[in-house]
C-alpha cells in the first residue's frame, strides 16, 4: 500500500508513450486501409462489395482483444513466431480499417447522387471524382464519427497489454495493484486520456468549421 508519488506518475508517463505509439500505428494502418475498404465497398463490382462487407462484418464483429490474441498466440500455434509489434500493427489495422471503412462508406453514400452524376458528366475519371468531388463532402459528414472512432482507438490501445505492452491503462492497473487506490489511479489515468484525446476533438471541430464555410 503505497502513496502515489513521482515514481508512479513517471511510470504512467512511460505507459503513455506506448499508448501514443500504438495509436499512431492504428491511425495510419486504419486510415489507409479504411479508405480502401470504403472505396471497394462502394464500387460497382458486386464481388468486391461482397468481399469487403464480409471483411467489415468479421473485424467489426469480433472483439479487438480476440483479434490481438489470435494474431499473436494463434499464429504462434502454427509455428510462426510473431513479433509483438507486428501483431499489434496487424490487429489494429484490421480493426480500425473495418470501422473507418464502414463509417466512410456510409458518408460516401450520403453524398447526393447528383454530385456523382455531375462529376461523371464532366468526364472526370474515378480518382478525380472521388478525390475532388465525393470524398471532401463525405469527410465533412463523417467528421464527428471519425473523430469519435479515433478517440476510441486511442483508448482501445490498452488491449495491447495482452501481448505484453505496458501502456497507459496497464500501467494504471499495475500501480493500482501496488497502491490499492484504484479510484485515484484510474482517475489520473482518465485525466491523462482526456488530455491526449481532447486535442483530437479540437482538431476535429476546427476542420468541421473550415468545411462549414462551404455549407449549403
Amino acid at each position, binding site marked *: 500500500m503505497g502513496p502515489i508519488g513521482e515514481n508512479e506518475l513517471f511510470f504512467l508517463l512511460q505507459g503513455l508513450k506506448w499508448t501514443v505509439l500504438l495509436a499512431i500505428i492504428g491511425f495510419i494502418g486504419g486510415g489507409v486501409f479504411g479508405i480502401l475498404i470504403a472505396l471497394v465497398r462502394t464500387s460497382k463490382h458486386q464481388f468486391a462489395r461482397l468481399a469487403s462487407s464480409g471483411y467489415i462484418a468479421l473485424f467489426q464483429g469480433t472483439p479487438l482483444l480476440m483479434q490481438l490474441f489470435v494474431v499473436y498466440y494463434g499464429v504462434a*500455434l502454427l509455428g510462426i513466431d510473431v513479433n509483438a509489434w507486428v501483431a499489434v500493427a496487424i490487429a489494429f489495422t484490421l480493426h480500425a480499417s473495418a470501422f473507418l471503412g464502414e463509417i466512410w462508406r456510409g458518408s460516401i453514400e450520403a453524398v447526393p447522387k447528383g454530385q456523382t452524376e455531375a462529376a461523371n458528366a464532366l468526364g472526370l475519371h474515378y480518382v478525380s471524382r472521388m478525390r475532388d468531388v465525393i470524398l471532401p463532402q463525405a469527410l465533412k459528414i463523417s467528421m464527428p464519427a471519425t473523430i469519435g472512432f479515433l478517440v476510441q482507438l486511442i483508448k482501445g490501445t490498452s488491449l495491447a497489454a495482452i501481448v505484453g505492452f505496458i501502456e497507459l491503462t496497464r500501467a494504471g492497473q499495475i500501480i493500482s495493484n501496488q497502491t490499492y487506490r484504484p479510484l485515484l489511479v484510474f482517475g489520473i489515468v482518465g485525466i491523462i486520456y482526456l488530455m491526449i484525446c481532447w486535442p483530437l476533438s479540437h482538431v476535429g471541430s476546427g476542420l468541421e468549421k473550415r468545411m462549414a464555410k462551404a455549407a449549403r
Partner: protein
Amino acid sequence: MGYTFDFGAVIDRAPELFWGSLGTLGLAFAGMLLALVIGVLGVAVRTSKVAWVRAPVIAFVEVVRNTPFLVQIFFIYFALPLMGIRLNPTITAIIALGINGGAYAIEIIRGGVESIGKGQIEAGFALGLHKADVFRLIILKPALRAIFPSLTSQFVMLTLTTSVCTSIAAYELTSAAQRIESDTFRSFEVYFTVTAIYLVISSLMMGIFALISRSYFNYPTR
C-alpha cells in the same frame, strides 16, 4: 507446436455460454436503447443556437468520449456508493453503456444533422412548423439515414464493450468465458468459441440494423 485442440470441455459448458450470451444481448440492447435516446435528445440540444444550452452537452460529450469506459463504469459502481447511490452490476452496466454510447451517438448524429441542407429547415419553418417538429419530422430521418452505417458501427462496438462490464462482475459472455477458461485451461478453445459467439451476436446486430435501414430509410434520393 504440438497443441491439440479439444473443444469437449467447452461444449460441456454450453449452457453457461448460452446464458452468458443472453446476458450480453440484454446489456447490449438495453444500453443501445438508452444510448439512442441520449443521442437523439442530446443532438437536439447540441444543435441549439444558444451557447449556454449547448455547453453542458458539449462538456458531457467531451468528458465521456475522452475517458476510458472502464473508468466510467468504475466510477458509477465504486464511487457513487460513497455518495449514497448504490446500483447493482446490471443496472450499472446498462447506465454506463448508455451514457458512453450516447456521447458517441450525439456526435455521430450531429454529423448527419449538419449534412441536411439549410433549405429543408427553411421549408419546415415556412410551413409554420415548430422547432421541435422541424427537428423531429424533417431533419431527423434524413440525418439518421446519412450516418446510419456509423451509428451501426458504434452500436456494434457497444455490443463488444459489454465485455468490460465483467470487471464490475456483471453477468455476460466474457465473464462466463473467463470462468470456463479458469476451470478448464482450454484458453484457445474458449477464446475461439467466444469470438465466434461475439461474431454471431454482432452479425445479428448488423443484420437488424440493416433491416431497419432497409425498411425505414427506403426512400429514393437524387
